[in-house]
């Protein structure tokens, strides 16, 4: 399997230290500011500049986390379990710089697109499974260095805790908490507090950051297993 992007991208300098190898800011035609980009096969009509393709932080929670300057503790070359992969927009960018990505999504319609994305990527493994029942995919997924979670369901902390079993002890949890999925009636700040409290049972929180203006009422969390 070839994954030269994580190797050769390390020479791209001038980026903030928080950016993973393989993630960089590039000038795209028609933009005055350099834009976040990864190197790989384009999948959803995003703009490209040579081998680089634009990573739109408005379409991707992880893209927004980089854009907000969060240190995701990824060096490139990691094994990743991605929970809530949807159509694979973000998963495809992560696969551009990771060793491999196990992408779990339970809704049939987005999985159709996710498989299309995986067709051009030998290191992206789509799984039509429910993130709330890790035992249904633990016979396929190996222990990973990073757990990325973006699921719009109630009990987001519960999902992260149940999937703790996949994460290496020195691994990292990268999570976007969606307040409205937990409780639309409560103030998002209160929702985040209670999800974080629940999360602390299994994880040590390293960083948090609201994702406005890219995503309303979302909190990014970077954590380590306890």
């Amino acid at each position, binding site marked *: 399997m070839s994954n030269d992007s994580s190797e050769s991208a390390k020479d791209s300098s001038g980026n903030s230290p928080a950016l993973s190898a393989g993630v960089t800011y590039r000038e795209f035609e028609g933009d005055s500011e350099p834009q976040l980009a990864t190197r790989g096969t384009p999948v959803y009509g995003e703009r490209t500049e040579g081998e680089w393709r634009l990573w739109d932080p408005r379409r991707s929670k992880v893209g927004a986390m980089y854009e907000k300057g969060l240190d995701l503790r990824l060096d490139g070359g990691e094994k990743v379990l991605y929970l809530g992969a949807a159509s694979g927009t973000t998963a495809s960018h992560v696969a551009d710089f990771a060793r491999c990505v196990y992408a779990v999504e339970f809704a049939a*319609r987005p999985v*159709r697109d996710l498989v299309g994305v995986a067709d051009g990527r*030998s*290191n992206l493994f*789509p*799984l*039509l499974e429910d993130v709330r029942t890790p035992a249904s995919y*633990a016979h*396929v997924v190996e222990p990973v260095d990073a757990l990325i979670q973006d699921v719009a369901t109630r009990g987001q902390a519960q999902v992260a805790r149940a999937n703790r079993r996949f994460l290496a002890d020195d691994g990292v949890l990268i999570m976007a908490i969606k307040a409205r999925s937990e409780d639309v009636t409560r103030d998002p700040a209160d929702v985040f507090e209670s999800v974080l409290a629940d999360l602390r049972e299994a994880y040590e929180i390293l960083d948090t950051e609201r994702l406005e203006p890219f995503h309303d009422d979302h909190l990014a969390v970077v954590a380590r297993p306890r």
Partner: protein
Amino acid sequence: MTDGSSAEERGWFEGLTRGDLDGARDAIETGTAERPADWPEQAIEAGFADDEADYYDALGEATRHAAREGAAERELSDDQQLIHAIRAMDDAERTANELAEQVAEWAGSRFEDVDAGIEGARAITEREPHSPGDERVTDLAARVVDLDAEATRLRAFTERTAGSVAPNLAALAGPVLAARLIALAGGLKTLARKPSGTLQVLGAEEALFAHLRGQATSPKHGVIYTHEYVRGTRPEERGSAARALAGKLSIAARIDHYSGDRRPELEDELDARIERIRTRGES
């Protein structure tokens, strides 16, 4: 379960022949393990793969096949087809009406005695065009008529499919309302799992959330308002009628999902219940 037993757990590739994609799909879909393990290493030891890269090639091929087939199968299930059909029907009807309005506007500037609506558009198609501009208008009118005919066919397909996907629900709610409820819930299974109070306000989410935020009274009904038993009941009793109807529809959805046999007595029970609600307080 202790850590010791995890050594006995089997990876998806155990007992599989390389290249047996259907076998791999079955193993991925039905297999389980309590904990993950170093599957690439175990697959190499078991002789399933030569090295890690070879294992990932096999895994990629297997997971793409399993996910593609699994998603296609789920998407083909009838309730999902029903959801596509009713959305297409709504879009076709709405678009036909919007285009008919545009046709009437435009035709009114070129022809005498133009009527609005689909029938107006149908009349336009009979006119003799005398210029390229006339021709555009009569052609557009013909598209409106075609789209309206397609909407009618979609409605017939929706009604037929609703009756086979959810016979009890379709009998009680009417096939189109049954399809709408299934579409709003995302499927028959999710509808069957919702409490009847939720079914009662499906389609009134905006009003419901305004209420939950404390800014409004609770909505009495969502899309079930289109049912004669709600709309045809006088306003003071409409909440009760909506609650009674939602209760029976919810039972019907559960029977349709979990057993699938017809229960005609549900209709009689509902009729009697609505009759009582409508006559109480009258003297």
